[in-house]
């Protein structure tokens, strides 16, 4: 089985090192993403899980360099296909958006412009990277893309407005728009959260299928562990702006090490176990302007000890391809 450590010779498509994205406020810079390191190999899927407000979306916007003021990327490197995205000027970055890195958003209902027809929006996105293509060529490509994401009667949909489509259809249109330029990396920020379950499954199937076809890498951001289990090769668990655990998907579900990950998994209902009540993690993610000292999870952690309130745990490898940021890991020693 391939994991990060098995193929050191091929450099990953995306490598983020020490990324720190902060939001300026009256009280100084507030970190939303605080020293994140991740890698995404070519053609594979990295899942990023975490609760609302843990910095997942800011992380993905940072990769696109679309963090809006008052936010800004304060430190770190984002190496994409051998280039440092943070060192590019805005025009080169614009050229990469859509063509090399693309993004689909959570809300397909509001991600399409209500005043333009579907076809116009797709051809506009393609035109941004291929200004010389004729209208007929673009239209043919757009219809092919709509057909590829299995939208029925694509010729007719081409001339329809977003409000005439259902949520799932709109997300397919977003995917078609993104695919029309065949990006190397697709960032999907909660792509199925706004959709109902059967449509979710269809969209995920579609994404996986297209990944196989075009060989693109995917960063899948979600708070839904079911989606992660189905889609991701590697998983990074985020908490309060930091990665707290990183492992292959199968390994993470089998042997979670960080108390937060254990809590997350415990809060998912399962069919194969008898359980009276679901475990819930007490409390909620601390707001980025009032982060606790030491390990950021310690106020909610059942295993916390004195050292956890003082020392910031670093992400350390406990096994090849499995790293965890917890002073008390491996957790078996504590429980035993």
């Amino acid at each position, binding site marked *: 089985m391939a994991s990060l450590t098995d193929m050191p010779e091929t450099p990953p498509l995306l490598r983020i090192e020490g990324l720190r994205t902060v939001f300026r406020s009256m009280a100084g810079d507030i970190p939303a993403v605080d020293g994140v390191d991740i890698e995404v190999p070519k053609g594979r899927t990295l899942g990023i899980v975490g609760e609302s407000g843990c910095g997942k979306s800011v992380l993905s916007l940072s990769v*696109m360099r*679309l963090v809006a*003021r008052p936010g800004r990327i304060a430190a770190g490197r984002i190496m994409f296909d051998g280039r440092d995205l943070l060192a590019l000027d805005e025009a080169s970055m*614009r*050229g*990469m*958006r*859509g*063509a090399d890195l*693309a*993004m689909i*958003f959570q*809300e397909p209902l*509001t*991600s*399409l*412009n*209500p*005043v*333009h027809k579907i076809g116009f*929006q797709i051809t*506009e*996105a393609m035109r*941004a*990277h291929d200004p010389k293509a004729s209208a007929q060529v673009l239209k043919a490509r757009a219809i092919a893309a709509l057909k590829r994401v299995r939208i029925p009667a694509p010729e007719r949909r081409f001339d329809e407005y977003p409000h005439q489509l259902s949520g799932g259809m709109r997300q397919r249109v*977003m995917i078609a*728009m*993104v695919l029309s*330029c065949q990006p190397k990396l697709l960032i999907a920020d909660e792509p199925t959260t706004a959709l109902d379950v059967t449509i979710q499954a269809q969209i995920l199937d579609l994404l996986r299928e297209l990944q196989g076809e075009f060989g693109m890498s995917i960063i899948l951001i979600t708070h839904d562990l079911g989606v992660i289990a189905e889609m991701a090769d590697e998983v990074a668990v985020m908490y309060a702006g930091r990665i707290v655990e990183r492992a292959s998907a199968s390994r993470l579900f089998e042997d979670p090490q960080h108390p937060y990950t254990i809590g997350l998994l415990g809060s998912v209902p399962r069919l194969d176990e008898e359980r009276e009540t679901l475990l819930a993690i007490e409390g909620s993610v601390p707001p980025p302007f009032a982060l606790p000292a030491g390990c950021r999870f310690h106020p909610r952690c059942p295993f916390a000890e004195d050292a956890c309130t003082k020392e910031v745990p670093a992400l350390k490898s406990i096994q090849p391809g499995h790293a965890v940021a917890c002073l008390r890991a491996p957790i078996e020693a504590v429980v035993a």
Partner: protein
Amino acid sequence: MSATQEAAEVAMPERPGLLARLLREPAAALSLFLVVALLLAAICAPLLAPTDPYDNDLTKVMQPPGSPGLPLGADAQGRDMVTRLLYGLRVSLLMGFVAVLIGGGLGAVLGFLAAFYQRWLDGPIMRLVDIMLSFPAILVGLAIAAIFGPGIFSVVLALSVATIPLMARIVRGSALVVMRLDYIEAARATGMTDARLIWRHLAPNCLSAIFVFATLRFGQVILLGSALSFLGLGAQPPVPELGAMASEGRNFLFFAPHIAVVPCILIFIVVLAFNILGDALRDALDPRLRL
């Protein structure tokens, strides 16, 4: 109509189009009718007018309305009032149209830039707008007429300048709302240039605000233009212009009131029609008020 057809229509209520929504309101329907009629009358003035606007007949000087062949009488030079009004309407509407087009266009560009480049341009542009707003339009008109000399060009320039800051504010406000919507970010993520984003995604979504304000402003501009012409800064005799006609007639208010009053009534109708239409458009286009 069969029962199944009826059921189908209940299930899928078709939203009435803009025109249908406008016509539902009697005042709006009337104003729309008036605006169309006024525009047609102005455009077709040469076809409709019984005489030439500069044709004076001294035998008809100051004939009251209702005289034979002169339904609205004649002015102090013996020119047919109907003809003068038709041509005057033409000049006034054209002045208003050009002023709203130029002033509104420049104002909209400023508003879009201020909203899109909020960090750098919002402050400077909006302070400039504040400064422009602090001068009364009449004063601007006087200053411009003093520089370029009185005439239609000066009036149009003054009206344009007076429209820029108002349109800039309206457009900035509605663009700021649109800027926060997801599809702007989604479009940015496809690698679009700023100019394309503004033109393709920002502007079309602000269009209804622009359209409504332009209609309302058109009425105000006509009134303001007539006022400037009345003060002698605009159209010069013998050019027929509604404000100038009222100005010429004011010397004869006691003997022949129709010469001043009739153009004033026409100004009143024009301004009222455009104002009501603007209000109705706002109601019809505003999704929050739509029931």
